[in-house]
């Protein structure tokens, strides 16, 4: 059981491990939800789960099917209006980590979830839009992104900037954040099916760890710019038997997101 695992399981496990030491986490549905619940059972037992629907200290008893599943309410510490959640928890600066997904991402971690195509009004593909992502990117202390990697998603230029990353690069982004009064320090971790990325002093994504079986060549083929690679590139340790048991038995027994 330990030697065979899916790419999604590796993503979930890698994202969960990155949550070590964190306290308050804004959760999304799907992969982030499983990653956060796995972290709570392994590296971050004190993690408080916050859902944008208006729940603090959630303890979901089943895998939530949507961002507002009734299981996130029953047994929670607090249910709030969405106004309170966004104003008093997020904009107040209480969220340590926000999880985001992305249809397109660039080297600075700027994210598009709005449209594919050059014309906002008449797009080729209409995506869901911001939801809470734009304000999470600005006001969560750190942003984690979890997404599958492809040449269509890791692009030189995104079609629409829904959620800011490190606009203008490292020093410039830090100055803009300060001037504009953000709580956040921008994206810090990107976990994909191929590896783990952090951001260097230029505010650019850097490959720090390659998952087992992934290759640098494959990474380069699926990135639309010249990706920076850490001088001491690591190999992500594979999922442990216990991590896989938690995912398969407790968190996603149907394999909806992890297969």
């Amino acid at each position, binding site marked *: 059981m330990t030697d065979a695992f899916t790419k999604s399981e590796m993503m979930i496990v890698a994202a969960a491990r990155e949550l070590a030491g964190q306290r308050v986490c804004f959760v999304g*549905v*799907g992969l982030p939800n499983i990653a956060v619940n796995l972290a709570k059972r392994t590296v971050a037992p004190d993690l408080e789960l916050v859902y*944008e*629907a*208006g*729940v603090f200290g959630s303890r979901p008893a089943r895998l939530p*099917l*949507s*961002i*507002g*599943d*009734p299981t996130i*309410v*029953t*047994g929670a510490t607090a*249910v*709030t*209006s*969405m*106004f309170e959640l*966004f*104003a008093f928890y*997020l*904009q107040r600066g209480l969220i340590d980590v926000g999880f985001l997904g992305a249809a397109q991402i660039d080297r600075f971690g700027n994210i598009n979830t*709005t449209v594919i*195509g050059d*014309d*906002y*009004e*008449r*797009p*080729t*593909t*209409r*995506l*869901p*839009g*911001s*939801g*809470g*992502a*734009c*304000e999470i990117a*600005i*006001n969560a202390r750190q942003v984690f992104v979890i997404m599958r990697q492809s040449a269509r998603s890791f692009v030189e230029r995104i079609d*629409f*900037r*829904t*959620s*800011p990353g490190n*606009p203008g690069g490292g020093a410039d982004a830090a100055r*803009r954040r300060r*001037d*504009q*009064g*953000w*709580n956040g320090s921008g994206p810090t971790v990107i976990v994909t099916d191929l590896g783990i990325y952090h951001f260097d002093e230029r505010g650019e994504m850097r490959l720090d760890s390659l998952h087992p079986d992934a290759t640098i060549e494959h990474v380069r083929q699926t990135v639309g710019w010249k990706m920076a690679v850490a001088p001491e590139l690591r190999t992500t340790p594979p999922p442990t038997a216990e991590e896989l048991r938690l995912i398969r038995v407790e968190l996603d027994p149907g394999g909806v997101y992890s297969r």
Partner: protein
Amino acid sequence: MTTPKVTSMHDAIAELVRDGDTVAIEGFTHLICFAAGHEIIRQRKRDLTLARLTPDLIYDQMVAAGVARKLIFSWLGNPGVGGLHAIRRRIETEELARSGETPLELEEYSHFGMVGRYTAGAARLPFFPLRSYFETDLPRANPLIRLVESPYGDGPVYAVPPLRPDVTIVHAQRADAGGNTQVWGLLGCQKEAAFAAERVVVVVEELVDESVIRADPNRTIIPGLIVDAVVVEPWGAHPSYVQGAYDRDNRFYLDWDPISRDQAASAAWLDEWVHGLDGRAAYLEKLGADRIASLRPGPAPSGQVDYGAYR
């Protein structure tokens, strides 16, 4: 004692929703009033501006039925499943070229922006300030999102305008005949959307005596003072859910995906499940007792608090 406001869904929609109105059927994944949306379709209302954070299946169905001219929203998707295809058909360039349909007007925000709009609308403020939208393309896509300087000299914030729907429709666990409404579980922004509106329709699972409301006043989110009509429509939020009463019918959300991808299939669905039925009771009968029974949760009652008798 307040005036009884209990009426039928047919009469509430006929009297309170008018062609050209801005209508908000709120409820964040929880308590989405599909019964009211279907009645609006059945009565063939036209040129509506539909406001909602998450248009969800109900607005996809309403757009497919041709009642809407414009959407005001912050997240456009079938939650946990995928896209909203009837709406996308009225936005995406190839789909529009193929169908020749009129494009849907869009006014797009983030969740906090929409919540802020209702809040400003409810409090009769000229705008709501928020620390969102910095370094994004959203203000360019929607010029109503504007950068302003703090009057106290501590930097820029974005502003969104108040949203004051002509009609807000909310679903709730219970209300009394006067419209005093109680909700538990996710609260979304129903309170803000109701206070922001000109007219308010409350649709409930259960009509209760005023004494039930008065026994637990902390649970009241909307006072009858601002409510125009109370409609008693059990299961009126199906296929979304009502905390403690029924679960989301996820099969319905999955089934809508292929139906909504096909214009003819969507029209056939609307004929069969909306135009072909005279109301919610017929809808439930068609859905079947087994399907309904499968959605009931087990019990998880709250503890009780003592408000104290002060004489």
